């Protein structure tokens, strides 16, 4: 009995060791359109305009060669900070650059709203660009909890 118990406990400890050592390669293949469609179905979507790879460079200093997939929606209303950004970079180094580009853009938008429209700034104050593997994503919306649950489902 004692031998059986010792064996079981040793196996448990061994299993935990291997689990802890397992590296995080990020989420498996994700279609960013699927993520956005699920978000759009779950929240009230404002009047968005979609920025394609051609448009995005007029807003964000991102190199389109770094992008494998992109789904960027920003509010058509200049006085709304709402936006949903989901990108896949071509590799890890590109993901770092894409994250930096969108972080600079997000901070710039926060700066412009901070003393201009406090209610919009409050929506985005704690929002940060997130990265999981080669995926870079974030959202500014009053329904952020719902969106984050969906993001976690795909990217965590």
């Amino acid at each position, binding site marked *: 009995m*004692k031998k059986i*118990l*010792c064996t079981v*406990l*040793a196996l*448990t*400890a061994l299993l*935990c*060791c291997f*689990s*802890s050592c397992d590296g*995080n390669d990020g989420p498996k293949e994700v279609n960013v359109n699927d993520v956005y469609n699920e978000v759009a179905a779950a929240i009230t979507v404002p009047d968005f*305009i*979609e*920025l*394609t790879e051609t*448009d995005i460079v*007029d807003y964000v*200093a991102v190199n389109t060669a770094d992008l494998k997939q992109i789904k960027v929606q*920003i*509010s*058509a*209303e*200049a*006085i709304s900070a709402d936006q949903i950004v989901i990108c896949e970079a071509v590799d890890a180094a590109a993901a770092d650059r894409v994250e930096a*580009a969108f*972080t*600079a*853009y997000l*901070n*710039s938008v*926060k*700066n*412009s*709203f*901070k*003393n*201009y*429209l*406090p*209610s919009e700034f409050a929506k985005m104050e704690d929002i*940060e660009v*997130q*990265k999981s593997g080669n995926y870079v994503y974030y959202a500014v919306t009053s329904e952020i909890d719902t969106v984050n649950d969906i993001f976690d489902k795909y990217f*965590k």
Partner: protein
Amino acid sequence: MKNNKKIIRNTVSVLSMIIIAAIFVGCFIITEQLRTKEPPKQQISSYTPPINAEIPDLFNGDEDTPVEELPVIVVPPGEGTEDDPTENVEELLPREKYGLPYPQKDRPEDIQAMTVQHTSKSGYEYFDNSVFLGDSVTLGLKNYTTKKRQTDSYFLGNAKFIAVGSYSVADTLVPVTSANSIHSLYNGVVTQPQDIIADMGVKRVFICLGLNDVGIYTQNEYLTNYSILINRIRQAVPDIQIAILSVTPLTVEGERKILYNAKIDEYNNALVAFAQENGCYFIDISTVLKDELGYLTDELSSDNYCHLEPEAYDAWIDYMMHHCIPTPEEEAALKEANGGAIHIDKGVPEVEGFEGSAGLP
């Protein structure tokens, strides 16, 4: 006795095994939590507007005195403040509540004569090699243009945009290193507009700024700042054409105690004269945005304040395409005919408190 010792020894062994296993499980849990650790928060530069800073009097003797950073005083739109008229909109209009004067529907004839007159309609190529510089109203035009270009890639030519919500003429002058800076990102770097314009290589700039100045600065301060902005743009791009667009109107319910249509009209009238004095064009886009009483037409406003619906941008663009400024070649011919000025001199009306500056060199 011997059996008891054996039982105790076995129990201790088992408990030790359990504790060791628990330690490994605990390490596993901690490792998983560390893997999903949140990234460090990004630092955002703080913004501290100066309080009661004095505006330097540039025309007090030495006109060559360089202007350093002008203080920027930001008054946010009246959200929930005592100036917010929306709380009383069912009782009194802002005009009635604050005793505001009525706006003008049409500009006085002598002033209107100094604006860009009606021309035959141009195509979108008119906007090639140009940039729009403005605030959230211009940002709305940028977003509208982005959307239109997804189905018509040549919509508005290849016009570019420098647009920041809450941007004022005063804001354009703030150094990029200042905590007050809200300048646009250009290639990922916070950059002043004249430097962006120089790097873009455009030939023409359409400036639509003032809604975030009129409620804060006097006419003289506003025009002084505008003069500095224009000079900086010309220093960066000496042969650029500059067209000033009228400050756009507010709806009847969107007026504020310190920002209302009659005041915007006064500033626009002064801006027309300023444009002529400073070798700029004035394109009076507010003409097509106003209703018969001089307010921003309700149907053209997206927020019952100052921001515009797509239909308003259609009217704005159509107006500009019917009120074109000359090409550089045509401008050169005009200057030759008018002794160096780009306008036929119909006289400059007196503008209280504004001493103006020299025209084209």
